[in-house]
């Protein structure tokens, strides 16, 4: 019975019609992401709607296509003389700001974050940018590069089109300074997710099959870069939705717990009501920007919507669960192991 649910989704009474009708809201106020459309010919794509995020980004495949030469020849040290790069970096704070142009020498194999660091070490020592691992593992250095959310540490300069590179802070979160945003919204949502609750462990430890843990493992690859939250049009230009919307990052958290072979907590009503799952209309923008290639929409949100529908609207299923606990097992069943 859960399989036939298909695209017919619960109409949340609070669901804003405009979110469905017009995901492409391009804010005309003085928001960072719109500034580049005034001048830069090289950033034509940046005026595209959220729906096109990632459309031209083939991830590793694209990198592959352009990088073929590095390991076969010595082109890296026969670089031609003019390798100046032009960066348009948003500078300012919550009271406003503007793009500032920097011209700096580019080096072979560099990522955007390398260039930012060299600008800090020379022209602009106070240029604020958040980063940690510089290896794509911590999810700190999210920004909108040429209008598209990317990790600065994993975006190679030579994969970007010729011309100035625009770097702006994530638009969905309040600006702290320059490229740093206040992402505390996410940490607040995290507090509302009820904890994992397993049954008591058997004497020789829990047993789970690899195939069962792999579903949750996909979601636990999440590095909390919050770019899925940034690009989600339910909150990107709708501050008013934030108090009742968990966002893609936390939908995968709910899904992970929901699919955990040992968990005994039922969070489906919570994710429907407080989490605002119904506000998501599956445009897949989140999936397209995920640097970990997590299939957020297909593997987390849609199955979660199906399970929530089961919980709320299917009296027969509801009764069945009451008797059989079909989607969530009892602590005893969970402890007994298996899928």
């Amino acid at each position, binding site marked *: 019975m859960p399989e036939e649910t298909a695209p017919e989704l619960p109409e949340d009474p609070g669901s804003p019609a405009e979110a469905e009708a017009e995901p492409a809201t391009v804010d005309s106020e003085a928001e960072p992401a719109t500034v580049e459309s005034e001048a830069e010919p090289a950033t034509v794509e940046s005026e595209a709607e959220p729906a096109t995020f990632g459309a031209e980004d083939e991830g*590793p495949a694209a*990198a*592959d296509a*352009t*990088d073929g030469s*590095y*390991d076969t020849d010595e082109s*890296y040290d026969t670089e031609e003389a003019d390798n100046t790069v032009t960066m348009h970096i948003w500078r300012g704070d919550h009271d406003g700001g503007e793009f500032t142009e920097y011209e700096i020498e580019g*080096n*072979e*194999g*560099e*990522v955007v974050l*390398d260039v930012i660091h060299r600008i*800090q*070490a020379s022209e602009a*020592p*106070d240029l*604020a940018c*958040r980063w*940690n*691992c*510089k*290896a*794509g*593992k*911590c*999810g700190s250095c999210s920004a909108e590069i040429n209008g598209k959310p990317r990790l600065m540490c994993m975006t*190679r300069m030579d994969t970007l089109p010729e011309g100035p590179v625009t770097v702006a802070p994530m638009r969905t979160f309040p600006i*702290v*300074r*320059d490229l740093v945003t206040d*992402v505390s919204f996410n*940490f607040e949502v*995290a*507090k509302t*997710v*009820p*904890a*994992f609750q*397993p049954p008591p*462990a058997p004497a020789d*430890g*829990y*047993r*789970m*099959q*690899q195939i069962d*843990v792999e579903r*949750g*493992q996909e979601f*636990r*690859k*999440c*590095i*909390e870069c919050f770019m899925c939250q940034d690009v989600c049009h339910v909150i990107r230009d709708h501050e008013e939705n934030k108090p009742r919307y968990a966002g893609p990052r936390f939908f995968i958290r709910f899904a992970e*717990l929901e699919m*955990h072979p040992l*968990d005994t907590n039922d969070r489906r009503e919570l994710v429907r009501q407080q989490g605002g799952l119904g506000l998501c209309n599956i445009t897949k923008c989140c999936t397209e920007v995920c640097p970990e290639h997590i299939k957020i929409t297909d593997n987390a949100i849609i199955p979660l919507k199906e399970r929530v529908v089961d919980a709320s609207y299917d009296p027969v299923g509801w009764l069945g669960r009451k008797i059989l606990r079909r989607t969530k097992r009892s602590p005893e069943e969970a402890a007994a*192991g298996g899928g």
Partner: protein
Amino acid sequence: MAEYESHNYDVIVIGAGGAGLRAAIEAKQRGLRTALVCKSLLGKAHTVMAEGGVAAAMGNVYPEDNWQVHFRDTMRGGKMLNNWRMAQLHAQEAPDRVHELEAWGALFDRTKDGRITQRDFGGHRYARLAHVGDRTGLELIRTLQQKAVSMDIDVFMECKVLRLLSDADGRVSGAVGYWRPTGEFVTFAAKAVVLATGSIGKSWMYTSNSWESTGDGHAMAIWAGADVIEMECVQFHPTGMVWPLSVRGLLVTEGVRGDGGVLRNSEGKRFMFDYVAPMFRDETAETEEEADRWYDDHANNRRTPDLLPRDEVARAINSEVKAGRGSPHGGVYLDIASRRPAEYIRRRLPSMYHQFMELAGVDITATPMEVGPTLHYMMGGVRVDADTEAATVPGLFAAGEVAGGMHGANRLGGNSLSDLLVFGRRAGIGAADFAEGRAGEPALDGAEIEAVVAEALAPLGREGGENPYDLQHELQSTMQSLVGIIRTGPELEEALEKLGELQERAANLSVAGSRAYNPGWNLATDLPAMLTVSTAVAQGALHRKESRGGHTREDFPAADPELGKVNFVQRQTDRRGPDAPITITPEPLPEMPPELRELLEEGH
């Protein structure tokens, strides 16, 4: 005195990687008022970068494994310089800590019968590392983070701690720091303080460490009068990326070798067979055939030399490159492409696959990786009591990389994540016990706070001084060239002289801009710790006139049995602080009981 935001807790934990989170969870479970203070956002600490796994003798893959074998491997890997009691506790308690993570929601990879599976790693006799593909650190930090959040522990994110504060009786009583987003100062009064600040790697040019690894905890402990030990023992991980230059030093997990990858020089030769030290000869394969059979049958074959402890492999790579048998960018080749199917590589090592594909344009399922040594881990650190993690100054505790002793002269891969869990928990208990037993509220010295604040603010008001980025660059190139993987007496003396000069120049830094999220200013406030710690490393390296584990002296190439019985202890005595001298004295290692010594002397 100016008014600063102030807080009062029973226990504050500085640092929110694995050790800090685990300590805070423990203190909070005891019902104490607990705070976690970290330089970055929660969940971004360097623990996320751990790849290979958590070492724990659970015996899920090899039932022969037990804590005694793990203890033995750890001590031998550490070249016997370890604190034996820490190595024992670690080996005994690691399995419980892994199972505990599972009960908190971690999803480890499984064996066929549904238990936690374990992978081979350098220096471990049996497949022992519980893991999640090659992103085990992320799983560990996220699990602990989610546990901490569910317990409602107070977290101060992007809050940099500058200095520990002591009361009139010399007990540590709190700390002072600032919020990075605003630059506003904040003070914490606490009955006990746990340092869990991680590493020191950012004082070198090529390191796998993130920007946070500036040795804050090591330095703050020294400035508070605590002892640090084994500061000369710094680990160079054998396999870091060497190209492109922008990612030089980025870690390539040992799991590549655990899963079948081998090291080759420019002639295609598996050179590690030429570098097997006598200590490891009995347990290491002599032929490629035996080494290859070992992956599937540990019982009847000896392990591949590609999986010797990290210090051995790093030195071997260094020698091959020096002998002119390196790769075009100054490393050697790490080849798994020719040895395992592409699908297997992508499944077992997904992060490595993406890292090379996206950053170097190299498909590791088709082409060997170029790798070379990168500064990775600090064995040395705060001298602690093995059972409680209490430092030598009352009220202060340390766990994880900032603490010394557990790993001796060289850490085995996989022993770091288990260290964080075992000693993070113990530090939490130690701090909680101390806090509960401490009478009265801890008092902070207003004048001391004012002095710290004034020192931190000085670069902002100064015109025409040194650029902190330039100073950092000089520090990094000094440490890289003079206190690197192979050291000599004259170079270490030169390094100390240069560090003294940098120390003087650091008193004259100038920073532009405001205090709000100003990375230039943040760096200026990191530099005092970086300089103190670098000085301690160079000084320790100069005094340890032998080669042992991560510490290699070209002028003293052999291990000295007498020096194998001592720790070099460093501390500040009369005068304390960034500009005060550090003394160094050899002190005997704790005596190991005979029943443990016997474990080490057995044939295997």
